[in-house]
C-alpha cells in the first residue's frame, strides 16, 4: 500500500514553475529517495507533503485519503537547514518541539531521556544549543524529528554536513526506523547514499518527475548492454575473434594479471555468440554485465540520454 500519493501536483512562484505536474507514489515501509540537481523542486515537494506550502493544483493522498492538518502529527520533518533556538537549553528545546507535535511534556521527557542515552549525550541536556558543534546540533535535531514516532519521516539532505562516522550512525538509525515500520523519504544529491539505503527513487529535474521506481529495477532497466571480459591471452586474437559481433569500447592490457576489455553488445541474442567466439581465442576468467551506478543514471537522465 502507498502511504503517500502525489497526484498531478503543480506549484509555481512568481515567475518560476517549481513543480510541473508531478505524480509519484511512496510505498509504505520503504526508504524513498528524492533525487535531483539543486533547484529541481525537491524541497518544494517535501514542503507540500508537510503542508508547509499548498500546491496550486493536484493533491496529496495520505493513507488513501486527502491529507489533513492532523496528519502532521504523524509526520516528522528535518529541513535541509537545521533550525534550533541557539539560546535555549537542549532538553527544553526538544520538549518544546515534541509538544508542538502533540506530545505531553511528561511523555516527551521520558522518550527524550531514552534517545539521549542511546546517543550518549545525556550531559547535553542543560547546555545551550549555541555551545554545541554543528554535528552535535544535528543529532539533537534528528532526535527532535523522530521523537514523536511518526509513521512518515521526511529528511531534506540528511547527510550534508555530517562526518562519515555520524553519517553512518544516521544511516543505521534510518534503517532501524524503517524496520520498526516507518516510511522514510529523503532528498539528496549524494548518489552513493541512495544505492546503500534507498529501495525506491524518484528523479526530479527541471520541476518534472523524469524517472521513478525501484532502485534495482531501474538499474537493470537502464543497464546499457555493457560487458567486461577478464582474460589471459593475446589482445589481437580476441579482437579478431569478436570483430563484427560487438563494439570494443575499451581495452586495458595488464602485464601481471588478467587483461580487461569492455564491450558494447547491441542485442541480448548476440551475447552468447560473443562469449563463444572469445572462448575460442583466449582464456576467459570472467564475463559480466556492468550495471550502471545510480550516479551514471542520474547524470545521463539529467542530460536527456536515457
Amino acid at each position: 500500500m502507498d502511504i503517500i500519493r502525489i497526484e498531478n501536483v503543480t506549484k509555481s512562484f512568481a515567475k518560476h514553475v517549481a513543480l510541473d505536474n508531478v505524480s509519484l507514489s511512496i510505498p509504505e515501509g520503504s526508504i524513498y529517495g528524492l533525487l535531483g540537481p539543486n533547484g529541481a523542486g525537491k524541497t518544494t515537494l517535501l514542503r507540500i507533503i508537510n503542508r508547509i506550502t499548498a500546491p496550486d493544483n493536484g493533491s496529496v493522498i495520505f493513507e488513501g485519503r486527502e491529507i489533513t492538518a492532523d496528519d502532521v502529527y504523524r509526520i516528522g520533518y528535518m529541513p535541509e537547514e537545521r533550525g534550533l533556538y541557539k539560546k535555549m537549553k537542549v532538553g527544553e528545546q526538544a520538549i518544546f518541539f515534541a509538544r508542538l507535535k502533540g506530545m505531553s511534556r511528561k511523555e516527551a521527557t521520558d522518550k527524550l531521556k531514552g534517545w539521549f542515552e542511546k546517543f550518549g549525550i545525556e550531559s547535553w541536556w542543560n547546555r545551550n544549543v549555541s555551545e554545541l558543534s554543528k554535528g552535535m546540533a544535528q543529532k539533537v535535531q534528528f532526535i527532535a524529528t523522530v521523537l514523536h514516532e511518526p509513521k512518515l519521516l521526511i529528511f531534506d539532505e540528511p547527510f550534508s554536513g555530517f562526518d562519515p562516522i555520524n553519517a553512518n550512525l544516521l544511516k543505521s538509525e534510518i534503517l532501524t526506523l524503517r524496520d520498526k515500520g516507518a516510511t522514510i523519504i529523503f532528498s539528496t544529491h549524494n548518489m552513493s547514499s541512495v544505492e546503500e539505503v534507498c529501495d525506491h527513487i524518484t528523479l526530479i529535474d527541471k520541476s518534472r518527475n523524469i524517472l521513478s521506481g525501484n532502485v534495482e529495477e531501474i538499474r537493470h532497466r537502464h543497464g546499457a548492454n555493457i560487458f567486461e571480459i577478464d582474460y589471459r591471452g593475446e589482445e589481437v586474437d580476441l579482437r579478431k575473434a569478436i570483430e563484427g559481433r560487438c563494439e570494443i569500447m575499451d581495452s586495458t592490457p595488464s602485464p601481471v594479471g588478467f587483461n580487461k576489455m569492455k564491450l558494447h553488445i547491441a542485442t541480448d541474442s548476440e551475447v552468447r555468440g560473443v562469449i563463444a567466439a572469445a572462448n575460442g581465442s583466449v582464456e576467459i576468467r570472467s564475463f559480466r554485465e556492468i550495471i550502471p551506478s545510480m550516479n551514471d543514471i542520474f547524470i545521463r537522465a539529467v542530460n536527456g540520454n536515457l
Partner: protein
Amino acid sequence: MKSKIGIIIGREFNERVRKKSFIITTLLTPFLMLGMMFAPMLITIYSESDLKQIAVVDDSKIIAQALQNNKEVEFIATPLPIEIARTEYSDYFAVLHIGSDIMENHNNVQLYTNGSTSIALEQNITTQIEMVLQNEKLKKHNIENLPQILADIESNVSIQSYKNAPEKSGEEAESSSSVVATVLAYVLSFMLYMFLLIYGVMVMQSVIEEKNNRVLEVMVSSVRPFEMMMGKILGVASVAVLQIAIWIALIGSVAYFVMPMVLPDEIVAALAMMKEGGAAAMQGAGEIGILQAIMMLSNMEYIATILASLLIFMVGGFLLYAAMYAAIGSSVDSPQDAQQLQTPITIPIIVSLFVMISVINDPTSDLAFWFSMIPLTSPIVMMARIPYEIPAWEIAVSAVILYASFLLVVWGAAKIYRVGILMHGKKPNLKELWRWMKY
C-alpha cells in the same frame, strides 16, 4: 488540529523573563524614572544655590537702597565710581551700574558680569528697577497716604480648580490639578511611545532571528504560521504587561512608603490637615499646587481609570504594531534590510508624538479628538488625553476602533508572514508585500 498558541506563548514568555537583562531592566527602570521625575523637585526644595553678590554703583541715588536681596542674590551698594568698582569687585558675581538719569532714560542700566548671567537674574533686576521707578513716579503725583494705598492694592492670586460635578457639594468636590494632568499626559504617552517602538522592534528582531536560524521551517511543519505569529506577539505582550505591572507596583509602593519620608515636614503636615478637613483646609496652606497634585494622585478612581486605559491602549497598540513588525521581520533576512520597510510604521508613531505635544495644550481640540480615533496614532494620543478626564465614550470608541483594526491588520500580516518566512535571499519591497497578501 489543537491550537499550539499556548505552547508558543509559554516559550516566548519563559525565554524572555528568565534573561538577566529582563530582571535588571525591570528592577532598575522604575528607580531611574522616579529619580528623573523627582530629582529636580527635590533639588529645588533642598538645594541652596550659591549666593550671588552684586556690587551696585547707583549714580541716581534712588535705586540701590530699594533693591531687595533674596536667596540667590545679594545687592551691595558701593560709593566707588563705576570704573574703579569694576576692577575693585572683580571677585563679585557682577557689578551693576545705574545711570544718574535713570528716571528719564530707563535704558541707562549696565550689568558687568564676571561669569555668565541668566535670564532669571536679569529679570529679577529689571523688575525691581521697574518697581522702584513706578513708585518714584507715583510719588511725584503727590497722592495722600500713598504707602497705604500701595499696600492695599497689592494682591496675590492662586487658583484652586475642581472637577465640575454639581451633585457634589463644594467641600467634597474633587480637586484637579492641570499640572498633574500635564505631567501624566507626557509621561504616559512617552511611555507608550517607547513601549511600542522597543517591544515592536523586539518582535521583529526575534522573527528575523528565527527565520535566519531556520527554526521557523521546523516549526511550520507542526504549527500554522498564524499561530506562530500570534504566539510570538502574545508572548512578548505578556512579558511587557508583567514588566509594566512590576513597575507600577514598585513605583506605587515607593510613592506610598518612601515619599512621606522625603517630603519636607510642612507639606506632610498640610496634607494631613487637608485629608481631614477636605478642600476647605487648603485655603490657608502655602503650597497649594503641590498639595493639589498629591490629592489628585491619591484619588483612587482617577488612578484606576488611567491604569485601566493604559493597559487597554498599551496592549491594543502593541498588538497592532507588533503584527506589522512581525510581517516585516518575516519578509527580510537581516535587520538592515528591514530599515526601509519599517519607515511606514515608524511615521505614525512619530506623528503621534508631535500631535501629543499639541494635545497637551488643548486636550479637547478637533485635532486631538481625531488623532485619538485613528488607530495607528490613537494609543499615544489617547494616553495624552486621558489624564484630562475626557468623556468615557470617546475612550470606548477609540478602543473599539483600535482592536477592530488590529484584527484586520493581523489578518493581512499573517498572509505576508506565511509567505515571508520561507523566502530567503531576496529583499522584497512594499509592492511585493502587498502581492503576498493576496496569494
